[in-house]
């Protein structure tokens, strides 16, 4: 089994096919979308492939060490290019192909007009802490 991170972006990913902001949907479309996400996580829990999932707030800041005293906190100067992660799901699956398959399914979550969003999700393999024993 191998762990993969599925990343959903607020900003920074290529535009989705059905790219309409959520506050322009109908309340029913929002409900359908949230139900889809819940069902997806529940299903992966049942198949034993779910590890963790969390949503992140859209507010974020850059912080770095800048010598003595308080570190500077800024929302820029890279605000216009900054990737913004909306949330993640960690899955533990047989391999890369299964991770891509699941990311594809998640990207089909319904959006405006009840049609799939076709959003781009990032799939990243975890680096394991220990080498796999092969012999």
């Amino acid at each position, binding site marked *: 089994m191998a762990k993969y991170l599925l990343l959903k972006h607020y900003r920074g990913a290529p535009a989705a096919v059905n790219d309409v*902001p*959520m*506050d*322009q*949907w*109908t*309340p029913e*479309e*929002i*409900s359908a979308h*949230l*139900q889809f996400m*819940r069902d997806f996580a529940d299903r992966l829990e049942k198949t034993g492939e779910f590890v963790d999932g969390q*949503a992140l*707030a*859209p*507010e974020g800041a850059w912080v770095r060490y800048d010598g003595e005293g308080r570190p500077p906190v800024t929302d820029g100067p890279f605000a216009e290019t900054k990737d913004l992660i909306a949330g993640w799901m960690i899955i533990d699956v047989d391999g890369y192909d299964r991770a891509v398959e699941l990311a594809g399914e998640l990207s089909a979550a319904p959006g405006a007009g009840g049609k799939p969003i076709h959003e781009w999700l990032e799939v990243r393999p975890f680096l394991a802490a220990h080498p796999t024993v092969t012999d």
Partner: protein
Amino acid sequence: MDEALVRSLTPGVLTILVRRGADFAAAEDAVQDALIEAFRVWPADPPRDPKGWLVTVAWRKFLDQARADSARRRREDLVEDEPPPGPAPGLDDTLQLYFLCAHPSLTPSSAAALTLRAVGGLTTRQIARAHLVPEATMAQRISRAKRTVSGVRFDRPGDVATVLRVLYLVFNEGYSGDVDLAAEAIRLTRQLAAAIDHPEVAGLLALMLLHHARRASRTGPDGSLVPLAEQDRGRWDTRMIAEGIGILQAALARDRLGEFQAQAAVAALHADAPTAGETDWVQIVEWYDELVRLTDSPVVRLNRAVALGEADGPRAGLAALAALDDSLPRYAAVAAYLHERDGDPETAARLYAEAARKAPNLAERDYLTRQAARLNAGRRR
């Protein structure tokens, strides 16, 4: 073996050891050892006086450990100097633990964890699961807290207000897994209310009961947020509400008003209304005026603006809002609601979307996004 009995005795045993001079961490280890012994011995040979049995065994365990310790002489001197244990007049054993666990040298989250461990008798695993952190992390947080208070003795009475803040924090931390922290906080506050006679303790207990009574109706079957006005009042726990109101009235009658009593009074007025439309908003505004006087908190002023919007109309609410800092948490949500009621869905939709972006949790974000979507969809039709 009666596990609830053991859990209720543990804090008292711990307190006696600490009062006799054991430091907090060593006393806790000794009590744990005594509990293990109890689980082994009691099923076959139950003691007549379980607490006395636990004190004796725990004290022996502590002395064994102390003798093995390099600081043996110092600790034994400490024991020699200590007056023999006797009844502490007017003060319940457990009460002293409350004050120790809410000591001002602890951060609020450490104080909450230590209270659950020492007064509530919960295991580290249960506390960790309730806070959604790894058990090792919580074990460290608790042992650091124990070290922090290990030099603190019981001769200085703590501040009731600090204890109440810690209990309210526990109440608000919610629940997961097998421990419901809200219910646990109510249990502990009941204990505290039985031990000391203080109108603010009663006020906090009433406030918790009144909030807790409405819990089942606060979320839909899918976990979505249901606002007060739309809640199914048939699902409110009327017995718990009646108990909360009774406790509150007795506290108010003593004419020593404090923050928790005033908050409980607002909660009681909501709980008492048969329908949302029959809510006595005029009285609620008056209670918020009291709260402003007592706390001068901007969050209270924000809540007051909402109440004023209901009592005197959305314009009055918006006027009150204009005097506040728009970076306050939930400011945009309140502004959105008042603008919608004032007949301006366009501004309201924009503010709901802004509020959703700033929402502190998923349930609120989804609720606010849906409000924005509802108004935007309505305008397109």
